[in-house]
């Protein structure tokens, strides 16, 4: 087996008549940081949602560390693994949402420990110690007993990153983690993600922050119209002569 952590092959996905992902293949190695950029509506979120099993794909193949979550049979139907197998596969990834999706009725500490304790059977003391360590690491010490509504957007997003990390995933997906934040709060969240990149956390990040993507990524993927139009190192993509890439990056103009 290669070092492939995530492998997506020939993913196709439609919503009714609308074909959102036409044929997307992507494999990500352990320790790799991949940024996904592209215009809105190009299918970036749908790609992450298929990869995290929030959406079922129409055809294609998805595997984590060689374990197949789904494949396409000879009749062209996408066949998913059993509930038990999927439950096991779900432990391998985490997802950080654009709008955090923290649990409003749980304190910060409970938000980041409850799943470990209740859904994964981690002993309480261990879960609390782990969570406290992570909260401190991300500048959230003293916030354990706060509720999400008492935190700034940047703090909430950091809590949601800690919530994902607390379950020790192999890979974390980010879907525009700073898009819901005021500009002055994006920096603190990007710094946290950057520190994870430096620690060689495997990450797939959908973002509109071009300079951030350039800085942290090992690879940048440009998506448009449900296809990966181009991928390569940040240098290759950001200096590309490809007209579509150029015009997209030019429009954002914050390199």
């Amino acid at each position, binding site marked *: 087996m290669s070092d492939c952590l995530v492998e997506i092959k020939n993913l196709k996905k439609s919503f009714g008549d609308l074909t959102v992902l036409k044929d997307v293949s992507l494999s990500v190695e352990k320790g790799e940081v991949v940024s996904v950029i592209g215009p809105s509506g190009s299918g970036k979120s749908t790609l992450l949602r298929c990869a995290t*099993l929030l959406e079922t794909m129409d055809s294609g193949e998805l595997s984590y560390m060689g374990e197949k979550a789904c494949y396409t049979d000879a009749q062209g139907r996408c066949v998913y693994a059993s509930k038990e197998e999927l*439950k096991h596969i*779900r*432990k391998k990834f985490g997802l950080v*949402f654009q*709008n955090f999706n923290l649990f*409003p*009725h749980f304190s910060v500490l409970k938000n980041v420990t409850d*799943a470990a304790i209740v*859904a994964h059977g981690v002993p309480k003391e261990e879960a609390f110690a782990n969570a406290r360590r992570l909260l401190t690491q991300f500048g959230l010490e003293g916030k354990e007993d706060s509720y999400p509504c008492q935190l700034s957007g940047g703090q909430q997003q950091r809590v949601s990153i800690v919530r994902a990390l607390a379950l020790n995933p192999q890979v974390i997906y980010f879907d525009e983690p700073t898009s819901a934040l005021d500009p002055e709060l994006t920096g603190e969240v990007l710094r946290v993600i950057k520190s994870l990149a430096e620690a060689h956390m495997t990450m797939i990040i959908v973002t509109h922050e071009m300079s951030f993507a350039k800085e942290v990524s090992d690879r940048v993927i440009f998506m448009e119209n449900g296809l990966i139009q181009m991928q390569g190192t940040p240098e290759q993509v950001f200096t590309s002569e490809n007209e579509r890439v150029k015009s997209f990056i030019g429009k954002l103009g914050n390199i």
Partner: protein
Amino acid sequence: MSVGKIILQLLDGSLVSIVIFLLTLLFSLPLGLLVALGRLSKDRILRSLIKVYISIMRGTPLMLQLMVVFFGPYYLFGIKIKTSYRFAAVIIGFVLNYAAYFAEIYRGGIEAVPKGQYEAARLLGYTPAQTFLRIILPQVIKTILPSVTNEVITLVKDTSLAFVIAVSEMFTAAKAIAAAQTTMMPFIIAGIFYYVFNAVVAFAMARIEKAMDYYE
């Protein structure tokens, strides 16, 4: 008849009213949740059946429903009605009716929880049951409390409808004394009773709402 004596005679009735009130809540609140889940279920047949049930409960007078529950077994199946069934019929009628109202309230509350909450829970490995009980339901309860309070206050007043099948709750008792003694006094006392009962209920509900104020 002195006021004191009237109050004494009404005391039994007031206890019956309170018991009807408590038993109705005890059964209709959980039943309403089950009905709401059925109303939201993927099973088309179950969903339609529940829709019909809810629309009948909300579309016909509770007084009529109480009479159907009480007299129905005799008229429909020829079963002889025992007097001991009187009280049970009141509770069954109230519970069926209030469960329908509560179901619609629960449904609104469940639908108001953002989809992202379910998705986050799924990603974190919660089972569907854990997701509902730990993540969704607590948020539902908080959002529906004001509407539940309204229904509960209505219930206090609705308990007087038990008079139609001659269960001697507060209002039935007041009516009987008023007729025998030709005085308005029992009705005034009954009115005060309902008013105070409601004030207590409103106070208790406000306390519960306040207890949930720790987040938004």
